[in-house]
């Protein structure tokens, strides 16, 4: 129960950061002006083992809520559901150990290298699906691909920062 509250509070903070800070930033990179870093999907990455169907449905509902805010029906929901479905599989591949040992996919638990690989796969899946669904065409594909790559890099940096802030205790290296 305490955990549930913790994750809900993290979600609210992430969401407020997304809407009031990240959405106000305009980054110019060459011609591309549609860089849009995401952070709210981080909550899907770090949720511990809960029944899979609750996990999928809550990812779907969260995605729908975000879609209502951005007026992009279905786009984020679809990406969220895909991410939720595929996360455990990616995590097991990256962890390479006993599955039952995985409790929290945080940097303090996985180590920097494995955590980066894990977030990279998850982020690029999320970005690819949401970007292609939003654009919904294959014309000017190179711009779309650039958008995906740059957004992935930006989002990964953010995920790393947030994870270090929330779950890494500097003096001992333990989970807080």
């Amino acid at each position: 129960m305490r955990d549930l509250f913790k994750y809900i509070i993290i979600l609210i903070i992430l969401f407020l950061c997304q809407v009031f800070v990240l959405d106000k930033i305009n980054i110019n990179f060459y011609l591309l002006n549609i860089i849009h870093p995401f952070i709210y999907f981080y909550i899907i990455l770090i949720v511990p083992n809960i029944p899979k169907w609750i996990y999928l449905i809550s990812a779907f509902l969260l995605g729908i809520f975000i879609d209502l805010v951005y007026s992009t029906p279905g786009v984020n929901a679809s990406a969220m559901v895909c991410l939720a479905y595929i996360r455990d599989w990616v995590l097991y591949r990256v962890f390479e150990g006993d599955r039952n040992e995985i409790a929290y996919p945080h940097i303090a638990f996985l180590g920097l290298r494995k955590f980066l690989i894990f977030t990279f796969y998850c982020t690029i899946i999320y970005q690819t699906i949401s970007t292609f669904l939003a654009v919904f065409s294959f014309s000017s594909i190179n711009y779309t691909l650039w958008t995906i790559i740059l957004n992935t890099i930006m989002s990964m940096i953010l995920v790393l920062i947030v994870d270090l802030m929330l779950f890494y205790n500097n003096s001992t290296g333990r989970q807080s």
Partner: protein
Amino acid sequence: MDNLIAFFIRFYLVILFIFLQVICIYLVIDYNNYQNAKAFEISSGVQGKLMSKFESITDYLSLKKVNDSLLNENARLHSALLSSKMIDTFYKGQQVDSIIKQKFTFIGIRLLKNTVNQRNNYITLSGGKKHGIDKDMGVIASSGIIGITRASSDNFTSVISVLHKDFKISAIVTETGNIGSIIWNGINPNVLTLEINPTQSKFKEGTLYHVMTSAYSDIFPENLPIGTFTKWKVNADNSISAEVHSGVDMTNLKTAYVINNIYKNEQKAVELIPKPKAK
């Protein structure tokens, strides 16, 4: 039967996943229908309340810019006052007070939310049905068009930005008189694309061409500035795509004007009368 149940128990996650994905894809493809517009009326209300709190804090930071834009706006309105009137020269013998009637009215409004960094951008305005704003009205800033309203609740309105894949309006090149349509290719928020219909007229290198709204639209008045272009390319079918540099800085909008065409419903009604069947 047992096999079927066993199948469901074994693959229930896959089935759930596919089911949710089908819902999502349906929403993506079908997002312009009426129910969706209704759902987003509610969501624009929620967004609006959140954003109006935030805007009340950050408003003071840009007062100077707002003043400048208002000054420009007033100058433009003074010089173009007649262009928003409809000239009624149809005289049928009875006494007519005036030959000029109001056709477009302008409603000044503040922006609550505006994104430019997505493929499909939306704007939220701090006014709705109470202030006379409804769907399918034009929205302009002081120096150019910025969108068309999509749905409105009592106090808030959601606008399809110029920077949206479904935004398309008719435009005219003032120097040559070519008609085309304005779209956005999703790359740079300050550059729009003007697609001119196949034409024989030649454009001269090194000339600055001005793009304005054409008279064919029932949403925008004639001769509103959209932007300028110097570069274009000729496609295989003789149509022309031009890079129009928008007059509006979409990243920095604070106020806007919603345009209400008083005669729109009348015009629509006439246009929608079905053609008589051939005998």
